């Protein structure tokens, strides 16, 4: 009873938030069931400000707010450089891909990324590219989804004492429910609500260490020369505020690229462009999405370094080995129930927004791009079967979250590299290069994925000096080169000129 009286603000905030998400799903239930275009891309009629917030909340997740924020505890304020790369790729995504992808997919009546490859390239390998990319989505995203569910379930366990498995079931179950009900409509509108919450939480979280220390100059004085030790046991001294003294810039570059490039390659981000309603909405989103992301990263990416100003030497020695616990520690140390309630609800929002987006992408890939290609079905059955596929896949994700394989965090980061190396050349070439061919798209996808696997498991950790070179760098370069060379060599497989005229 005592525990309940202490935690009621947290429970209330979570309950209100979940009720809002379910209400949105319920509201859009009827509209989403009208047809494939409604369920998959919300009929391309969503305002720019909703898409903008949805893109931001889909890309940033609990991994950003807990994992990356905590990472700065070990890496220092230099970790903010990761945020520079992420903001840069957000800009690139909206400037280079957004308007063109919206334009071409509307002309081609494409509703998923795999069917864009099929309709755009119109070659003997188009269907194979579509199915290959759909299977990649199914296999690569399961670890990402399980990782997010795992993070949220641990949070529920530590804050409310909920058993881990029940927490995972609740997170996956609620997200699945509103996604199934309202399709892309509910995913985008709940994402927008979650985006607002995430921005607010980023601002609140960064204020906590300053309030605890008693001001800006007090906190900066505390962290500019600390007696804490690094993970290797060396004294930190002024390392928290000195450029790359605790982490190499190559490592920062690897994380900056491998995660940041998700914005230019992962279907959960790219499919956001499909639903923008008009040019005014597109312009709004192009300006404001980097602002939403940039401001939240300014707050979050150096947070762990600031938390040193709240820790004793013993606490720092523990946290340096468990950086995922830094944010939870900060909230516990600040000890304000209202602040904890706001932050924890925002952290759930960060997890659920990414989870819902991926759930829908997986359902559309399984039914629209694999089942329907293998055995075409009437349009009326596609939506119903997509809903069923989302429920079945959510069950598999639950099992993966309850019985996670070793190194699930590594698998999540690896799957991001698979998308960037496999999907980007085919998307970019499809949008800008008239001479890009289906063969170029298919083989660059295969080569990109193979290079990611070979570098990761065969070279990176076996060859001295290459440990910090993330697989994204060689795999991306190789895949892009393969697309250009193979497209030139297979020019006879280019789609007919009238088809290209309609697209470009």
């Amino acid at each position, binding site marked *: 009873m005592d525990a309940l009286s202490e935690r009621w603000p947290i429970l209330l905030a979570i309950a209100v938030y979940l009720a809002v998400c379910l209400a949105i799903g319920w509201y859009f239930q009827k509209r989403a069931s009208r047809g494939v275009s409604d369920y998959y891309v919300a009929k391309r009629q969503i305002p720019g400000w909703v898409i903008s917030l949805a893109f931001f909340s889909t890309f940033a997740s609990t991994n950003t707010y807990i994992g990356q924020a905590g990472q700065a505890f070990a890496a220092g304020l230099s970790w*903010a450089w990761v945020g*520079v790369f992420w903001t840069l790729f957000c800009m690139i995504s909206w*400037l280079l891909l957004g308007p063109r992808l919206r334009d071409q997919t509307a002309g081609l009546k494409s509703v998923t990324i795999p069917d864009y490859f099929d309709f755009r390239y119109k070659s003997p390998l188009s269907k194979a590219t579509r199915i290959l990319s759909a299977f990649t989505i199914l296999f690569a995203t399961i670890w990402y989804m399980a990782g997010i569910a795992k993070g949220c379930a641990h949070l529920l366990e530590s804050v409310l004492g909920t058993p881990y498995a029940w927490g995972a079931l609740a997170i996956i179950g609620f997200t699945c429910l509103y996604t199934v009900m309202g399709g892309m409509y509910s995913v985008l509108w709940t994402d927008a609500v979650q985006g607002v919450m995430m921005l607010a939480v980023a601002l609140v979280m960064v204020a906590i260490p300053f309030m605890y220390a008693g001001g800006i100059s007090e906190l900066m004085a505390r962290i500019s020369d600390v007696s804490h030790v690094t993970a290797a046991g060396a004294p930190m001294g002024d390392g928290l505020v000195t450029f790359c003294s605790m982490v190499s810039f190559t490592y920062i570059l690897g994380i900056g690229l491998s995660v940041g490039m998700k914005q230019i390659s992962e279907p959960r981000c790219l499919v956001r462009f499909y639903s923008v309603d008009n040019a005014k909405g597109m312009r709004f989103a192009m300006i404001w999405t980097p602002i939403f992301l940039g401001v939240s990263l300014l707050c979050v990416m150096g947070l762990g370094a600031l938390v040193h100003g709240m820790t004793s030497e013993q606490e720092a020695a523990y946290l340096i080995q468990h950086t995922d616990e830094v944010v939870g520690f900060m909230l516990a140390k600040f000890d304000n129930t209202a602040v904890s309630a706001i932050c924890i609800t925002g952290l759930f929002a960060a997890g659920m927004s990414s989870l819902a987006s991926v759930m829908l992408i997986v359902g559309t890939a399984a039914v629209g791009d694999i089942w329907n290609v293998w055995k075409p079905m009437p349009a009326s059955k596609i939506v119903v079967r997509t809903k069923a596929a989302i429920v079945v896949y959510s069950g598999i994700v639950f099992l993966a979250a309850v019985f996670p394989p070793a190194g699930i965090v590594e698998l999540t980061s690896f799957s991001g590299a698979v998308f960037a190396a496999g999907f980007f050349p085919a998307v970019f070439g499809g949008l800008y290069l008239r001479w890009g061919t289906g063969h170029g798209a298919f083989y660059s996808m295969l080569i990109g994925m193979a290079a990611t696997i070979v570098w990761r498991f065969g070279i990176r950790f076996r060859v001295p000096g290459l440990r910090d070179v993330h697989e994204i760098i060689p795999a991306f370069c190789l895949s892009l080169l393969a697309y250009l060379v193979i497209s030139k060599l297979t020019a006879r497989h280019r789609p007919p000129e009238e088809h290209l005229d309609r697209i470009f």
Partner: protein
Amino acid sequence: MDLLTSAAYIAIVVLIVVNTWVVRHMKITVRDEDEDH
């Protein structure tokens, strides 16, 4: 905080400003599903 570390925070702000300027000067068109080029 040394210069190169603070440069990260400045760079994010600069990127946002540059992006806003570029988008304001861009011509953006979005077509409907039934509309041909």
